[in-house]
C-alpha cells in the first residue's frame, strides 16, 4: 500500500504534498466505505459458501439486529407502529437498564437465533426434499418481505439513531496532517474497519485451519457424501445460519451507529451491493468478501468528482468487467471439472 502510495505521489510531481494527501484521504475513505460493504457481505457469503444459495433475508436480519440492539439499548419506539405506546422498560429513567455493549451482544445473539429459525422453517424443508436450490432463494425473499414489513408494522418507517454517547468519549473523527493538508476519518468508520478485520481473521482461522472448517467445506460441496463421513450436515448448517445471523446483527448495529437506522429497508439497500461484493471477491470465499468490499469501496472513493453521477454504476461496471476476465471472482477458485 505504502509503495503504491509513493508511486502515486511520484506521478504528481507538481504538488506532491497535496496530491499525496488527497490520495491518502481517498484511500481511507475507500477503506471505510469498503469495510461496511465487507462486514455486510460476510454473513451473506457464509451461507452461500455452505448452501450455495443467496439468503435474501440477510439484509432484513442485518436491519433487525440494529433494531433489536436499539430496542435493548434505548427502549423507545416512534409514532407510527403498533408498538408506539409500549414502554419496554417502564419506570427506568433514560430508556434502558442495560448498556450498549450488552445490548449489542444480546441483539446480535437474537439475530443469530432468528437466523436459526429461518433455516429451520424456510430452508430445511426445501433441502430435505432435495428441491431446486433456486427455490430457497424465493423462500428467503419471502422471509425478507415478512421481516421488513413486520418491522414497519411494529415500529414504523421512521429513522432511528443511536445516541452519540454509546462510544463513550471518543471524538467523532480522527485527524492528522500530511504536509499542510488535514486528513480526517470518522471514528465510527475506524471501529467498523477494525471489527470487520477481526471477524475476518477469526472466521478465516476457523474455516481455514480447523476441522470445523474442513467439515463445513465438505458439507458445502456434497451434503450426502459429508453425511457418509459422519458429518452432521444439519447441525453444521444450523451453526452457519446462527453465525451468519449473529454477524449480520452485529454488523447492522455497528453500521447503524454510524448512519442511523433509516427505516425497515435499511438492510435491504445493502443487499444488492453486498451481492456484488461477494461475487466480485469470489463466492464462498471469506477473504473474498472483504477484498471485494474494499475493492468496490476504493473504486467508489476514487471516482473523480465530475463523474460522481456514475459512482453507483462503477461498482457494477467493475463487477461486470472482472467477471468477464476472471469468471470465478477475485479470490474464488475456478470450478475444476474433470471428465
Amino acid at each position, binding site marked *: 500500500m505504502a509503495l503504491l502510495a509513493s508511486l502515486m505521489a511520484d506521478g504528481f510531481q507538481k504538488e506532491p504534498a497535496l496530491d499525496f494527501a488527497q490520495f491518502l484521504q*481517498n484511500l481511507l475513505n475507500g477503506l471505510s466505505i469498503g469495510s461496511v460493504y465487507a462486514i455486510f457481505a460476510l454473513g451473506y457469503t457464509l451461507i452461500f459458501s455452505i448452501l450455495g444459495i443467496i439468503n435474501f433475508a440477510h439484509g432484513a436480519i442485518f436491519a433487525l439486529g440494529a433494531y433489536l440492539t436499539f430496542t435493548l439499548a434505548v427502549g423507545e419506539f416512534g*409514532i407510527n407502529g403498533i408498538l408506539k405506546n409500549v414502554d419496554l422498560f417502564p419506570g427506568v429513567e433514560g430508556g434502558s437498564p442495560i448498556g450498549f455493549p450488552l445490548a449489542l451482544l444480546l441483539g446480535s445473539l437474537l439475530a443469530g437465533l432468528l437466523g436459526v429459525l429461518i433455516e429451520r422453517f424456510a430452508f430445511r424443508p426445501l433441502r430435505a426434499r432435495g428441491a431446486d436450490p433456486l427455490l430457497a432463494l424465493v423462500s428467503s425473499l419471502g422471509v425478507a418481505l415478512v421481516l421488513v414489513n413486520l418491522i*414497519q408494522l411494529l415500529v414504523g418507517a421512521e429513522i432511528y439513531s443511536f445516541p452519540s454517547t454509546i462510544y463513550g468519549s471518543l471524538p467523532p*473523527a480522527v485527524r492528522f496532517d500530511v504536509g499542510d493538508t488535514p486528513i480526517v476519518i470518522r471514528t465510527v468508520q475506524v471501529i467498523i474497519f477494525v471489527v470487520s478485520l477481526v471477524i475476518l481473521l477469526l472466521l478465516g482461522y476457523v474455516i481455514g485451519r480447523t476441522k470445523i472448517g474442513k467439515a463445513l467445506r465438505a458439507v458445502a460441496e456434497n451434503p450426502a457424501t459429508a453425511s457418509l463421513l459422519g458429518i452432521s450436515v444439519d447441525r453444521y448448517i444450523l451453526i452457519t445460519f446462527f453465525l451468519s445471523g449473529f454477524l449480520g446483527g452485529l454488523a447492522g448495529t455497528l453500521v447503524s451507529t454510524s*448512519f*442511523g437506522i433509516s427505516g425497515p*429497508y435499511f438492510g435491504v439497500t445493502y443487499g444488492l451491493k453486498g451481492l456484488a461484493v461477494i461475487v466480485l471477491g469470489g463466492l464462498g470465499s471469506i477473504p473474498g468478501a472483504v477484498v471485494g468490499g474494499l475493492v468496490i469501496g476504493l473504486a467508489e472513493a476514487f471516482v473523480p*468528482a465530475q463523474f460522481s453521477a456514475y459512482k453507483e454504476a462503477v461498482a457494477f461496471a467493475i463487477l461486470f468487467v472482472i467477471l468477464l476476465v476472471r469468471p470465478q471472482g477475485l479470490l474464488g477458485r475456478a470450478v475444476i471439472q474433470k471428465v
Partner: protein
Amino acid sequence: QKVATPIEIGVAVAQTSNVALLGQEQVIGARLAEKFFNNQGGINGTPIKLVFQDTGGDEAGAINAFQNLIRDGVVGIVGPTLSQHAFAADPIAERAKVPVLGPSNTAKGIPQIGDFIARVSAPVAVVAPNAVKQALKLDPDIKRVAVLYAQNDAFSVSETGTFQETAKAQKLDVVTVQKFQTTDTDFTTQVTAVLGAKVDLVIISGLAADGGNLVKQLRQLGYKGLIIGGNGLNTSNIFSVCGRDCDGILIAQAYSPQQSGAINQVFVKEYRAQYKKDPPQFAAQAYTGVQVFVEALRKIDRKKKLNTWDLDDLRAELNKAILVGSYRTPLGVISFDKEGELNQKEFYVAQIKMKDARNGSFVFLK
C-alpha cells in the same frame, strides 16, 4: 350512480415500501384533517370519510390504488406521494374525470396532466431561492458554494437546478457539484471533495435519511460553514439522523409550524398532542389536500345537497369549485390557477436549533 354518505374522499399514498417514511406522515396529516373537519360538522352536517389505498413504491401500485378509489366512488383523491407515481396514476383519474390534489408532487408538468389534476405542493422553483438569500443575509462574505443532490430523486434533481441558478444569480461561485443516491449512507467521498474545495456554503437537496447523514458527516469531518437543506430535509425526522450536528441548517420551507393562521395552530396543537413533535410538511400538505376538498364540497353542498348529486356530475363540479376558491390552510392562504397549479403566498426559511441530541426545532427566520 348517486353520491354515498358519508362523503368519501380517497387518499392514495405510499404506506409501504421505502417511500413509506413520507407516506405515513401524509396518512397522519389526512387523518387529523378528517377528524378536525368532522368535528366541525363535516360538509354542512354530512360527515366525510377518508378511504386509504396504499400505492406502494411503484407506478403500477399507484395506478391500482387510484383505480380502486375510483371504483369505490370517492369524490376526489389526495395523492400520490411521488411525482413519478403521479405521472402514471393521474392520467387514470383524468380520464375517469375524478379530481386529484397532489399533496407532494413538485415536479414540473403535474397540473398540466389534465383538467382534473391540481396540487397543493408548491413547485420547487418558488421555494428554494429564499434560503440562499437568507444565507447571504446571515453571512454576506459567502463566495464559494458546494452543491450536493440525490440524483435518483426527482424532487431533489429539480430543486438543485433552482439552487444552482439562484446561486449564480447571486454571483456566487459554484465550485463543486456532487451527486449521491437517496439510498446512500456513506458520504465520505463527497464530503472530502467538499472540504477540498474550501467552500463557505453547502447546499443539499435530498431526503431526510441521506441528507441528515450527509450533514452529520460534513460536520464530523470538520466542515464549519453554513449548510442549506432543501425541502426534503424539512422534517423533524432529520433530528434523529444528524443529532446535534443538525444545528444551524437553513431550510427553505413551503410549510412552517410557526405559520400563524388559526387553522395551522389547531393542526400543530393536535399533532403535537399526539406525536410530541412538530408536524412535518408532508403531514401539513396532506391535511391541506383534505381541507381543500372539504371546503369546495361545502360550497357545492350549499347550492345543492350533496346526496342529491350524481357522482360524475359532482366530481366535475367539485373540480371546478376547487380551482376557483381560495383557502386558509396550514400552508397559509392558497389558491389555484386555471391549470391547477398552486398559488402559495407564504414561504419560510427556518434554522434548526437542537435542544439535545434527539430533539430540536425549526426556528423561523425573518
